[in-house]
C-alpha cells in the first residue's frame, strides 16, 4: 500500500497499552482508510472497545501513536482534544442515550452545545437525522420507551448529528433481533456511503461484518492476527483466523480456561 497520508482517516502505529500489569495490546499497527467501513473483530474480552476509547482519546496508550486527520491523539492537550473530537463520533454498545431527555433532545444535544443555531434550524437538522434512521415519528418518546433496536438507531442519529468525519461503532449488532440487526447493517453502510464518512465497526458477529466491511482486522492475543478484505480472510490459512471465522469451539483459542491438569485435580491434587 502506498504511504500517502490523506488516504487514511486514522493511523495507529506501534501502539502498546496495558491495564495494570495485564497487557492489552503490544505494538499493533492499523490503518483505517477514508470513506470505507473497516471492521475490527476478535473474541470478546480482548479490548476491542478499549481500542475505540484510545482513538477517542479517553484513555492514553503506554506508547505509540494514533493519528487522526493529522493530529496525534495521545499528545493533544485537553482543549485541542475536545476540538478534534467534534470531528468524530461514537455509537456505544448500550446506545447511551441521555435518559432524562426525549429522543429529539438527545439528537439536538450536541448541536445545541456546540453551535448557536436558532431553534428552527436545529429542528430541521434533527428531523433530517431522525428521518435517516427512520425514527422521525418517535421524536417525543423518552429513551425508556424505546426498544433496544430503536434506542440504537436513535443513538445513531445522535452520533451523526454534527456530521462527523469518523464514526466508531461499538458492537452495533450485539443483542439485536434479526430484523433490527438487518436495519442497522443497512444503516451503517448507507450512512457511510451517503455522508462520505469513515466507519470503524467493532464486532464479533462474523456474517454481518463480512457483508458490509471493506477491510477487516482480526485481533487476538494483544496483536493483529489477520487482516484483509472479507474475501481474503475467508481463504486465510491461519488456524486462529479460521477458528474465529467459522466459530469452532476449540482450536488455537482453547475452550478451557487455563487450569491444572484435569485428572490431577479430580484426584484431589495428589501427584
Amino acid at each position, binding site marked *: 500500500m502506498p504511504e500517502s497520508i490523506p488516504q487514511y482517516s486514522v493511523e495507529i502505529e506501534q501502539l502498546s497499552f496495558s491495564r495494570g500489569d495485564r497487557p492489552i495490546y503490544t505494538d499493533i499497527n492499523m490503518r483505517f482508510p477514508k470513506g470505507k467501513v473497516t471492521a475490527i473483530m476478535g473474541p470478546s474480552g480482548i479490548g476491542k472497545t478499549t481500542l475505540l476509547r484510545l482513538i477517542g482519546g*479517553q484513555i492514553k496508550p503506554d506508547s505509540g501513536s494514533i493519528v487522526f486527520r493529522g493530529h496525534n491523539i495521545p499528545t493533544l492537550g485537553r482543549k485541542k482534544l475536545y*476540538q478534534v*473530537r*467534534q470531528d468524530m463520533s*461514537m455509537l*456505544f454498545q448500550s446506545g447511551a442515550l441521555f435518559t432524562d431527555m426525549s429522543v429529539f433532545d438527545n439528537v439536538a444535544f*450536541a448541536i445545541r452545545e456546540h453551535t448557536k443555531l436558532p431553534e428552527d434550524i436545529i429542528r430541521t437538522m434533527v428531523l433530517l437525522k431522525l428521518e435517516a434512521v427512520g425514527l422521525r415519528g418517535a421524536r417525543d418518546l423518552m429513551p425508556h420507551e424505546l426498544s433496544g433496536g430503536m434506542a440504537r438507531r436513535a443513538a445513531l442519529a445522535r452520533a451523526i448529528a*454534527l456530521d462527523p468525519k469518523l464514526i466508531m461503532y461499538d458492537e452495533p449488532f450485539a443483542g439485536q433481533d434479526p430484523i433490527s440487526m438487518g436495519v442497522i447493517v443497512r444503516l451503517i453502510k448507507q450512512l457511510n456511503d451517503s455522508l462520505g464518512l469513515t466507519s470503524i465497526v467493532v464486532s464479533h458477529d462474523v456474517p454481518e461484518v463480512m457483508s458490509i466491511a471493506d477491510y477487516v482486522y482480526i485481533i487476538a492475543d494483544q496483536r493483529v492476527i489477520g487482516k484483509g478484505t472479507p474475501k481474503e480472510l475467508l481463504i486465510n490459512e491461519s488456524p486462529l483466523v479460521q477458528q474465529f471465522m467459522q466459530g469452532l469451539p476449540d482450536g488455537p483459542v482453547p475452550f478451557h480456561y487455563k487450569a491444572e491438569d484435569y485428572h490431577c485435580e479430580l484426584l484431589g491434587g495428589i501427584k
Partner: protein
Amino acid sequence: MILNMFQSVGEAVFDRFAGVGRASIMLFGALFGIPNFRKGFPLFVKQVYVVGVQSLTIIMVSGLFIGMVLALQGYTVLVDYGAEDSLGPMVGLSLLRELGPVVTGLLFAGRAGSALTAEIGLMKSTEQLSSMEMMAIDPLRRVVAPRFWAGLFCMPLLAIIFSTIGIFGGHLVGVEWLGIDAGNFWSIMQSKVDLVDDVFNGVIKSIVFAIVVTWIALYKGYNAIPTADGISKATTDTVVQASLAVLGLDFVLTVFMFGG
C-alpha cells in the same frame, strides 16, 4: 510479615491521597467550568429544583417536629427551675446554631446526596458520561458543575427554612400548648439571639456542609464502579461519609465559632 503490614498500610495511605487528589481535580474541573451563563443557568435552575425543591418537604416536616420536640423536652427541664420563659432562646439558639445546619446536612446527604451519587453513577454505567465526552462535551462542566453549584446554593436556604419552621414548631408547643407567654417567648429570644453571631454563623456552617456533602456525593458518583453493585456501594458511601463529615466538621466549626 511485618514488612507486608507496613507495605499494606503504606498503600492504603497512598490510596487515600490518590482519592483526595482525584476528588480535588474533579472539583477543580467542575468549578472552573460553567462555560457560559446562557447555557449554564437553565441547567443550574433545573438542579436547584432537583436538589432543593424536592428536599423541601422532608426539611420542613423534620424542622417542625424537631422544633416541637425541643420545646417539649426543654419545657420539662426548665419548668423545674421556673425558667420556662427561657424556652424561646433555648429552642431558637439550638436550632440556629446546631440543629438547623447539622440536621439539614444529614437529611440533605440522605435525600439529595444519595440521589446525586446514584444518578451520576448510573450515567457513568450506561456510558452517558463517556458518550458526552466523545461528543466533545466535558461531563464535569455539563453534569457535575451545575449540580455542585445547586447543592451549594440550596443547602443554606434549606437550613434557614428548617430553623425558621423549627422555631415556629417550638412556638406551637411552648406557647399554644404549654401556655408560656407569647410575648416572653419572642422577646427573650430576641434579646438572646444575635443576627451575626447566631444566624450568620449557622448559615456559614451550612455553607461548609453544603460544599462537603455535595462534593462527596458527586465524587462518589463520578468515581463509582459502573456496575449495579458499585453504584449501590457508592450511594451508601456517600450517605455514611457525608454524614460523618458533617458531624465532625460541626464540632470543629463550633469550637471556632462558639468555643472561644
